[in-house]
């Protein structure tokens, strides 16, 4: 659990996050950062496939694109000036990381170059106030995906950077991110991660407000989009076995150039002497591959104006949603909140002697919170993998699921990454009363 302090816009009270790996190594990524040149807090979940390279890259880079998109013309000019004069850049993001998170590499020079090209183009637009949040999200997703795709087409000197770029482009990642600024909540989603709001009505009843649609074969509007974008002759082959061209579950994702580039381009790039086997790159051409691109990173952006009754936002990778429905998730977080309300004696301050330790432990036992989680995300993951078909917790099942050998875990569960963001109803209330 990472608590936020005063530095954070006050509509967000705090957030809790956790991750359980099924793949080895884990292919999910997450990110939380605040924009330092504009106001707003960003939360992201990135679910990689075919390796973790793409998810890692998106989790490192996407927030920078969004932050830059939101900058005013003046700020961008300052940034450009600093680059020209080799002066220190303005800080763009403040990351809020967990010590266990995979380490974010600082933006490499190539990545920074591309970010700079992007803000130079933004400067050329001569928009004083920067893009709207909706536009910023929309452009950032597509721009980053196109940069990922172009970076490997352009000749690169550095062998390591070259290989990494290839791995990024030939793996994939879905992304779901939220931008919170005061009462303005924007959610951008490409793929099958999901964001939902937990809402408590005035009568005390809880409900769930989904903020994203899964981009997969079960989404009729995605189906019709795909059919619209491709000739009628491909209607029957575009989705096979509920997968895009029979290979990919989500219909939108970063990377995955196998589903974006023409066959010729793929061949040209790969023939430049990469050791695809060593790089663990899965090279294939799906059947019925006629009119690429079939895949896009263009997000669906939702806007929601936060109300006092909006209590929390849950962002999670599909590993969670495979196991729990939206209502289950809201119910579990609510249950967790009500329990966490009770005071549970803390062990962090080690009691001085055995007697005091015992009485503390007995208090903890009596409060019935013995196994309860401090972290709502942990609570959700525990129930996702430990609940039986009736939604009851089975400790035995939980133990079994958690002690699966590394090579078997992925057969029983997916990587699960969850971030729960709690809103401060009082400050939201104050916002409405003040205005």
């Amino acid at each position, binding site marked *: 659990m990472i608590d936020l302090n005063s530095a954070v816009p006050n509509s967000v009270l705090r957030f809790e996050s956790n991750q359980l790996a099924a793949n080895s190594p884990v292919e999910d990524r997450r990110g939380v950062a605040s924009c330092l040149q504009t106001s707003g807090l960003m939360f992201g979940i990135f679910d990689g496939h075919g390796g973790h390279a793409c998810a890692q890259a998106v989790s490192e880079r996407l927030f920078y694109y969004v932050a830059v998109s939101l900058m005013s013309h003046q700020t961008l000019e300052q940034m450009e000036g600093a680059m020209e004069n080799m002066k220190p850049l303005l800080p763009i993001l403040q990351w809020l990381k967990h010590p266990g998170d995979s380490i974010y590499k600082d933006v490499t020079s190539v990545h920074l170059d591309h970010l700079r090209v992007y803000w130079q183009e933004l400067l050329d637009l001569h928009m004083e106030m920067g893009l709207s949040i909706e536009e910023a999200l929309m452009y950032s997703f597509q721009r980053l995906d196109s940069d990922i795709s172009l970076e490997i087409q352009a000749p690169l000197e550095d062998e390591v950077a070259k290989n990494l770029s290839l791995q990024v482009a030939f793996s994939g990642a879905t992304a779901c991110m939220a931008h919170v600024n005061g009462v303005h909540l924007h959610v951008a989603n490409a793929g099958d991660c999901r964001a939902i709001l937990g809402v408590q009505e005035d009568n005390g009843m809880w409900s769930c407000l989904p903020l994203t649609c899964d981009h997969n074969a079960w989404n009729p509007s995605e189906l019709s989009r795909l059919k619209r974008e491709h000739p009628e002759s491909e209607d029957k082959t575009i989705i096979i076995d509920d997968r895009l061209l029979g290979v990919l579950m989500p219909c939108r994702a970063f990377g995955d150039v196998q589903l974006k580039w023409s066959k010729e381009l793929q061949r040209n790039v790969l023939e430049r002497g990469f050791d695809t086997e060593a790089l663990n790159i899965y090279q294939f051409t799906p059947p019925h591959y006629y009119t690429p691109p079939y895949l896009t990173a263009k997000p669906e952006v939702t806007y929601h104006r936060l109300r006092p009754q909006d209590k929390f936002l849950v962002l999670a990778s599909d590993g969670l949603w495979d196991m729990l429905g939206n209502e289950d998730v809201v119910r579990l977080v609510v249950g967790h909140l009500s329990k966490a309300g009770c005071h549970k004696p803390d062990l962090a301050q080690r009691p*001085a*002697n*055995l007697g005091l330790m*015992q009485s503390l*432990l007995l208090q*903890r036992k009596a409060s019935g919170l*013995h196994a309860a989680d401090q972290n709502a995300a942990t609570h959700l993951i525990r129930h996702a993998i430990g609940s039986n078909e009736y939604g009851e917790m089975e400790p035995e099942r939980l*133990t*079994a699921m958690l002690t699966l050998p590394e090579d078997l875990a992925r057969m029983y569960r997916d990587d699960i990454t969850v971030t729960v963001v709690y809103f401060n109803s009082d400050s939201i209330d104050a916002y409405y009363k003040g205005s």
Partner: protein
Amino acid sequence: MFYRLLSVARRQRTSPGWQNWSSMRSNMSTAEAQSIALPAQAQVVICGGGIMGTSVAYHLSKMGWTDIVLLEQGRLAAGSTRFCAGILSTARHLTIEQKMADYSNKLYHQLEQETGIQTAIVDADGRIYIRNWQGGILSGGFEKNPKPIFTEGKNQLEIQNLQEDWDHFEPLLSSLLRRMPELETLEIMKLVNCPETFTPDMRCIMGESPVVQGYFVLAGMNSAGLSFGGGAGKYLAEWMVHGYPSENIWDLDLKRFGALQSSRTFLRHRVMEVMPLIYDLKVPRWDFQTGRQLRTSPLYDRLDAQGARWMEKHGFERPKYFVPPDKDLLALEQSKTFYKPDWFDIVEAEVKCCKEAVCVIDMSSFTKFEITSTGDQALEILQYLFSNDLDVPVGHIVHTGMLNEGGGYENDCSIARLNKRSFFMISPTDQQVHCWAWLKKHMPKDNNLLLEDVTWKYTALNLIGPRAVDVLSELSYAPMTPDHFPTLFCKEMSVGYANGIRVMSMTHTGEPGFMLYIPIEYALHVYNEVMNVGQKYGIRNAGYYALRSLRIEKFFAFWGQDLNTLTTPLECGRESWVKLEKGMDFIGREALLQQKQNGVYKRFTMFILDDHDTDLDLWPWWGEPIFRNGQYVGKTTSSAYSYTLERHVCLGFVHNFSEDSGEEQVVTADFINRGEYEIDIAGHRFQAKAKLYPVTSLFAHKRRKDDVELSDLHGK
């Protein structure tokens, strides 16, 4: 998982400490890990430098094997040995464990090193132990709700320091403070949470792999590594040097397990049950509750519906007895007793039915092998491996031991000659791995000699009792009388609609009856037919407890309980099952010839308790000391209440220890017969009559002469 709380008084805090302790332990590591080039080969490579690895190395070198490489990933004694609380318990409930612990105790004293062995207090009710430790105390225990982990081959260093979990430790802490409230004021120094290894039956694993020759295992100490270290190392070293250990270690033998016990889920469930039992009272006839119903007979559901209560052997469910519909048994916890058990009357009724009418017992768990060849290879190898003469006419059944070089029983089985070149071999249930490995080891590599494990192919039903013959003749339309079907014969015949049933005129109790080996798809049909036809003869189901009572009152030894690798046929009155002059050599013949000449040093004897009150006195089970004229002469190996004699019967070996030197001397029949005997049950001695031959009045019916020595398989 296994917790230890280390707690020292405040005033002590500055000087001694955890770091100190671990460095003190490191004086055991004489070869502090410097990077030395490993030799390309060695006579023995020992993986793991904990107490077991070092003990094996120590004993090997004592025996003259010095070309040893000992590999350790960390420092010596840095694994679970490092977290050992230094407690050596010499009160064990298995004889072999007792011997290992006694030996370890002596060895450690002899080594005169700082081994950290101290007096400890064990509060079994509170599941904790407490001992002095550097001015403070060290306390730990075995929780009721352990958390299993699998190490997945991860580095030891990664798993030996698990996160502390105080909430999990609370019950043990509360036990400690209940026992010693004064400790409340002690300062907490460290909670150590380290994993321990446990096995599915709470016994360690020792011995040579049945599949990789020369690969020896010594592991799974169930947190008693220090107690067993010395003895276990010694036995394993003997095993490696001499080919066999000096004691019977079957209870610990790696080969008591097969692949079937290696499933991850089975292990997870079972070790969670095993660990809390460490401090539980061990009662006789305890059955594990987890990891059950793995191997079952096709009749399992039918029998279960008729009230069967089950025990498990080698993963196979076997009926103990059948609870009648109108009878209630005690709840599991209440049924734990050292006295007369709650099933007494139930088993009595089953025994009575076996004696007077007919019963059916599902004995499908037996290990069944077929040995076939194109020529005489099968006969030749069997003649070499078994002590009895197997060159018998087709259709005959032979009881015989599979002996080792010392003449001791590696296995005890019944072999039917199906045809000139094919034999059907029945062994005890838990012989499946051991017997297979033994046969494979000795069989020549010959494509024309085929050994097949057919255990799973046949359901075995025992029709037992004087009316068995009537039931079977009705079902087979064939005369089953002794004139047409003499004892110890095997015929393939049809029973009901089913063809190809192997019918054997033998039981495993000495009662009249038949064993039916039924291809599994016919099992239900044959069972239904038997029960239908048997109705008018008063047929009922019976279980292994009835079988046990019947076999023990008739003085039948069971391999695995009475017989083991150190007992020979001559020591248990089975001379007639050994054919020393069958015209060819067999394994163990030399030793038996010598024994025949010199006499035996122990003798299998039956004891009938005289003044024992079945209702009020503690029951004998096994392991009770036998006294002859007031002198200790041995221990019982099994016992049962005989409903016919209305007395308890104990079986056991009588030795003749020299009064001066304690040396073992020859035991003659005269020596046995001329003694006054007592059996000591938990400190109370009961007078007993010793017998070298079964009570003949138990065999009411007329039989062939050698029926007296009828089979006795297994069923323990």
